[in-house]
């Protein structure tokens, strides 16, 4: 945290100490590239209101580019708009439009390569293919930007904030919509994603691939194809996020695929087809999460070991837990289950009989997805009931032997 | 009026009517007689179009009944069992029949004849069996039709009503109607019938005028006359 503040302060100081060049229709510099050309390192280029057609503008020196009253950089669908190839560049206050589209080249509004200590903030990006794409750039801050894609399911949607091989990144307070993935991290370590809103994206609100030791907190993901996917990653902390309305076929709030040692705490999952879909993920700690009105709260496929589900609230989900194997190496304890029908005679706050969160039908659906067509049919109610009385197919040790009688507060 | 030509009817393997041909061209009262299961009711029901014969044709007033259901305007029917929709009143029941077909405008006289005025608003489910039978009688006699088919008309009626019914039947004959009736009570046949048709195991074994029958067998009692007549045809076990 303090490191980031340090960078910010540095950048601010640099703006005041070094020279300042202005760009406008009446200024000495009429175009942004010409101003950058004549700027010395650590100068500030102030761009006044106006429309500037720009594409493939390359920045090769550390400077501060600042828009006053939101000048517009128009890419005219011709490819990249800004390419940052230098450390310590600050880029703030611009409106950016019309990035080019290609099958083989991932054009972005703002692109960086091997450029550390960047600050990209307060920009409004519209009709982008990729929004902000940073490669092999570390100690970067991407803050308070608005990125809007083309709201299309087709190939012409890219990712909003796309980081590849980066470290110590901080993505904060951005609003991302109409993209493929709102935020995409591939090989990104030791980074934070904080308080972003990611919504109406085709694929994911936030997507981690091969990334380790990252945290994401206080984000809001809604109406995405799926909320968040965390794949092939380690040590990810997911705290206090909200996953809403990821409704749709094969949609989920959170997808965990081959991840280890994660913490999932105090998140709210509401109205998702599947709140958390877990595949081959181990040593995950789920605590104090709310699962409300989802199709599935937790859907487990593949081998998942030593996971702990404690003190969560499972309220009005069609299926609380679905499981594909008989083997259970996971702990469910002290959760609140709204469909628990047991009693608490000794009044200690915990139900006296264990709760079995896996219904036979969810087991069947997991095996043969097509059987979902029988959802809520009378026959299914009957076999669910008989399975609950005498478990045959569902893992008989998969149960919460200390279900809470009341909704858990924290 | 009614012409039955070679009709036969089988229920699965059971032959209930075998090759029966009958014609009724004059008004009068015809008693259809025979033991239980001889096919009396089935025969009447074929005329009413309720039972569809396997072979043969039935014409009413020259019209083939399998072609047009409107001929039933000319036939009134008093069924054996009187069961009616439980939750309807007598008045509503009368209205149903009145709306279905041509009805004598003076049908309320019939209602009072059988003392049914007090029950007009009563639900049919609350009526006794006898009262229901009276309603049944009213329903059939209120119809404006040339032909009356009465299946065991006196069953369940008290003696006073039976007498009234008999008078009613006679008056309808005098109006020039053809009345076909089945009964097990010989007294009624004796008293009312002009002609009898005798069925046995689905075949018509006898048809003739009551007076002729009595003459030919030299018997005063109709019952005996019939037994004699059928005896002549080698039938030993006769139940009427």
């Amino acid at each position: 945290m303090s490191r980031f503040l340090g960078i910010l302060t540095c950048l601010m100081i640099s703006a005041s100490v070094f020279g300042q060049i202005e760009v406008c229709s009446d200024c000495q510099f009429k175009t942004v590239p010409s101003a950058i050309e004549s700027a010395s390192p650590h100068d500030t280029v102030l761009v006044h209101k106006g429309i500037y057609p720009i594409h493939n503008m390359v920045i090769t020196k550390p400077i501060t580019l600042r828009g006053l009253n939101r000048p517009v950089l128009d890419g005219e669908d011709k490819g990249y708009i800004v390419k940052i190839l230098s450390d310590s560049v600050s880029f703030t206050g611009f409106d950016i439009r019309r990035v080019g589209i290609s099958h083989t080249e991932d054009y972005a509004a703002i692109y960086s390569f091997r450029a550390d200590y960047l600050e990209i903030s307060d920009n409004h990006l519209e009709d982008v293919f990729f929004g902000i794409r940073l490669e092999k750039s570390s100690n970067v801050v991407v803050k308070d930007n608005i990125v809007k894609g083309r709201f299309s399911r087709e190939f012409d949607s890219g990712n909003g904030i796309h980081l590849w091989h980066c470290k110590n990144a901080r993505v904060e307070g951005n609003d991302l919509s109409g993209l493929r993935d709102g935020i995409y991290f591939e090989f990104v370590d030791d980074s934070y994603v904080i308080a972003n809103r990611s919504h109406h994206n085709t694929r994911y609100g936030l997507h981690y691939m091969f990334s380790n030791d990252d945290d994401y907190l206080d984000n809001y993901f809604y109406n995405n194809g799926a909320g968040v996917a965390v794949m092939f990653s380690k040590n990810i902390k997911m705290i206090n996020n909200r996953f809403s309305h990821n409704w749709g076929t094969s949609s989920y709030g959170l997808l965990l695929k081959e991840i280890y040692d994660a913490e999932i705490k105090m998140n709210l999952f509401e109205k998702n087809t599947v709140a958390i879909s877990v595949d081959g993920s181990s040593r995950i700690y789920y605590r104090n999460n709310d699962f409300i009105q989802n199709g599935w709260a937790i859907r487990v496929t593949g081998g998942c070991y030593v996971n702990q589900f404690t003190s969560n609230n499972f309220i009005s989900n069609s299926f609380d837990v679905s499981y594909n194997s008989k083997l259970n190496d996971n702990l469910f304890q002290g959760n609140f289950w709204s469909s628990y029908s047991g009693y608490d005679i000794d009044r200690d706050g915990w139900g006296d009989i264990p709760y079995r969160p896996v219904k036979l039908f969810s087991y069947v659906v997991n095996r043969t997805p097509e059987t979902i067509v029988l959802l809520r049919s009378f026959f299914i109610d009957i076999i669910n009931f008989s399975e609950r009385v005498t478990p045959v197919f569902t893992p008989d040790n998969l149960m919460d032997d200390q279900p809470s009688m009341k909704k858990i507060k924290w | 009026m009614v012409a039955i030509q070679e009709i036969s009817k089988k229920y699965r393997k059971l032959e209930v009517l075998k090759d029966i041909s009958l014609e009724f061209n004059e008004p009068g009262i015809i008693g259809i007689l025979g033991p239980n299961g001889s096919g009396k009711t089935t025969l009447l029901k074929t005329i009413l179009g309720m039972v569809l014969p396997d072979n043969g044709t039935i014409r009413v007033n020259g019209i083939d009944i399998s072609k047009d259901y409107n001929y039933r305007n000319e036939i009134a029917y008093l069924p054996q069992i009187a069961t009616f929709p439980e939750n309807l009143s007598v008045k509503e029941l009368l209205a149903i029949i009145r709306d279905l077909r041509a009805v004598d405008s003076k049908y309320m006289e019939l209602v009072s004849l059988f003392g049914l005025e007090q029950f007009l608003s009563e639900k049919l489910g609350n009526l006794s069996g006898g009262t229901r039978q009276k309603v049944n009688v009213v329903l059939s006699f209120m119809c404006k039709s040339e032909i009356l088919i009465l299946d065991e008309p006196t069953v369940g009626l008290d003696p006073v009503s039976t007498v009234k019914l008999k008078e009613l039947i006679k008056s309808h004959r005098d109006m020039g109607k053809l009345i076909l009736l089945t009964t097990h009570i010989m007294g009624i046949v004796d008293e009312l019938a002009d002609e009898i048709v005798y069925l046995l195991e689905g075949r018509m074994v006898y048809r003739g005028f009551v007076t002729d029958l009595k003459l030919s067998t030299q018997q005063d009692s109709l019952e005996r006359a019939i037994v004699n007549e059928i005896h002549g045809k080698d039938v030993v076990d006769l139940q009427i």
Partner: protein
Amino acid sequence: MKFTEKMWLIFKYSFKDMIRAKWIIVYLLFYLLLGFILLFLNNDLSSSVITIMNIIIILTPLIGTLFGVMFYYNSREFTELLIAQPIRRSRIFMGQYLGVSLSLSLSLVIGLGLPFLIFGLANSAEIFNFIMLIFIGMALTFSFTGLSMWISLRNSNRIKGFGYSVLLWLFFAVIYDGIFLSLLLIFENYPIDQFSLLMSMLNPIDLSRILVLIKLDISALMGYTGAVFQTFFGSNWGIVISGIMLLLWMTTPAYMMVRSSKRRDF
């Protein structure tokens, strides 16, 4: 137009006879009670719609079946009297069938509609789902009343008619889905989504259930298998086809009943 007049007459009396019966009032009261209790308990219209759906798709066919059989056998003698009247048989049976199924439908509409109206349905977004639920309840009532009257017509033995009708209900309500599930599990390695679509069309109860679910929020679950159901039932084409199927399920039993009434002896 005289024939429709006569059918109307038969309908009127059957309807009157039905709505004055004790059992139909019990049926109405049951729905009233159910509606009030459900809404009182959770005050949430949308989850009430799901609970009511679960009840409706099982109960309306059963009630339709029972009342159809009961009405047929109880009014058999009177029906015979009617058959001897100058009226076409089809009009009698259609009239009676409409009388029974519409009076049952009326109980459904009033019994569930009243509590929902009182609890503010008119202003709720659920109104469309609710109307659809009622419509489906009616469709099932018509379908199963027709089926049971048809079976009764073909069986003069009251016990047999009753038995077969209830068995048919049991078949569609439970057994069919058991067979369905087994088939899906047996053929799980085959592309079975088209097949399951077909299977769900061939059972009015399954069809109704899916039609309701697809309109509710949990429809997304149905898309779990790769969207076949959602794309089918979500498209106009699918709605039309399933609507036609449901209509066929409503009308075919009545048609079959009328058809076999023409050839039957009374």
